[in-house]
């Protein structure tokens, strides 16, 4: 009772080929990568330039049925070179979920699923140049689920999503200062003398006598 590796390989290859065919020459490259955990399924990794991302997203949604935007990760690479100061990774899924007419359900038999039914994972990587205003076009209107993910990514990492409506802080306090995005790398989790944040009445937490000495 699972999607076999063959089914997975067929579906992944189809998707990757379709993307490469459609977007050849635009800098969008789809690749097949194999997970090295659990059952070693493969997934499609797409590297896309930001200007083509919206077109790619719409095409993926309507042509190959990617209906689920599960996760958006922004990463800050202050030392990543001029072309890769920021990276935005989208994790998308194709799920075989359809509306039901009353009093029915759809019970797929995993081994017998074919074609566009087979669930596939997608990872879309968008590299952004190293500057102070990283920005990506929004896909809020493509997947509703991207809405709060984009809010979170802007809130925590500071990636601007061009065209995102109703952007506000979701996890940080609403009155956080402008430009404060805690997951950027200039904010350190352990500052010098971080221990003074805590009540260290005895003081021995501050500077252990043998600090830095390895036995």
């Amino acid at each position, binding site marked *: 009772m699972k999607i076999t590796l063959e089914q997975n390989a067929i579906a992944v290859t189809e998707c990757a080929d379709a993307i490469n065919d459609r977007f050849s020459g635009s800098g969008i490259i789809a690749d097949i990568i194999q997970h090295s955990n659990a059952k070693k399924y493969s997934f499609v990794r797409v590297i896309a330039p930001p200007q083509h991302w919206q077109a790619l997203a719409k095409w993926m949604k309507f042509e190959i049925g990617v209906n689920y935007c599960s996760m958006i990760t922004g990463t800050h690479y202050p030392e990543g070179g001029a072309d890769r100061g920021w990276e935005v990774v989208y994790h998308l899924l194709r799920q075989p979920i359809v509306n039901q007419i009353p*009093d029915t359900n759809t019970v797929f038999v995993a081994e017998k699923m074919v074609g566009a039914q087979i669930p596939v994972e997608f990872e879309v990587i968008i590299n952004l140049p190293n500057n102070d205003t990283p920005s990506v076009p929004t896909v809020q209107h493509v997947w509703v689920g991207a809405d709060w993910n984009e809010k979170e990514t802007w809130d925590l990492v500071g990636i601007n999503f061009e065209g995102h409506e109703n952007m506000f802080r979701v996890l940080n306090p609403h009155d956080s200062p402008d430009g404060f995005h805690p997951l950027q790398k200039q904010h350190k989790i352990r500052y010098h003398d971080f*221990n003074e944040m*805590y*009540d260290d*009445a*005895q003081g*021995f*937490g501050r500077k*252990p*006598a*043998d600090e830095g000495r390895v*036995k």
Partner: protein
Amino acid sequence: MPMHPHAKPNFRNLFWYPFKITLITALRTFPIFGKLFGKRLGMGYHNTSHPEFLDDGSKARASKNSSFNDISQQEFAPDRVTSDLFPTLWKPQTVQYPYERLEDMEPWLFVPGNYNGRIGVIWETCTACKLCVTACPNDCLHMTTELRVDVLDGADGEHGGLGAELEIGGYAAQLIPEVADTLDDFNHVTAHADTPDQWRFAEVLDLSGGTATVRWNDSGMEQDIAQSELFVADDQIVSGRIDLGRCMFCGLCMEACGFTSFFMTNEYDGMSGFTRQDLWFDASRTRVLPSVHQEAVDAELAKRANKERDKRARKAAKAKAAAEDGA
């Protein structure tokens, strides 16, 4: 398949089923009905035989009460409910906690053996390797050490010559006689300074024949020196403290310890205080139960002595073989 795939509201169920099941539940909390329902349910509610719940740990915990309540005579339901201990209906069940404790009343209802409770350290067998300090995600362990000469573990020490000896990668110390001579006259009161150290420490790089190659800690210089001039030194604990206010009881420290010196005990209280300072536990508050403590110390020391003995035996055999080869 669900019992009622599309249950529909109806008149009967305003009155019947919810009332029926609460009545059953209420009745079977009385042991006499509990046994009856137990039979009907097949799995049993009160006093059905489930020996798998009488594990060794529970028996051991209950042994001190065995004259009062022998749990090997008890029968349990799978959720560890028993009703033989208090067969009378109306005895109070509320445990007046600080004065009464659940583990005394109903030990089988209590803490299984693997519980990650208060941290306990057996300092006698701790080698100050600091693996636990490294493993702690929250920096709640603090340990300071300093190099000291291993007086007790040396050839004249308590372990009958089976203590430490010079090892490559270990530490050694050399006595500085001129300092040692002044120590008798050293006066803390007038000197306004620390006691001068009569030892000079070094890391042992190589041992060959009667000499040792060492790197002095104070100068960083390497030197060959006769082994007879060196004493065995070791990193020893000056203070070990735990900030239980930051501890999240993940147990990574316990796993990191290679010497079974570091325990998560079964104790769940005695970890509160009115200030954060109260939560800094020093060595005296991380003691484990005396019986466990003695046992662990004995076992660990015996293990080390055996290891040392084996090592020496192997070394002797090797030397003998080498000598024979040479001959």
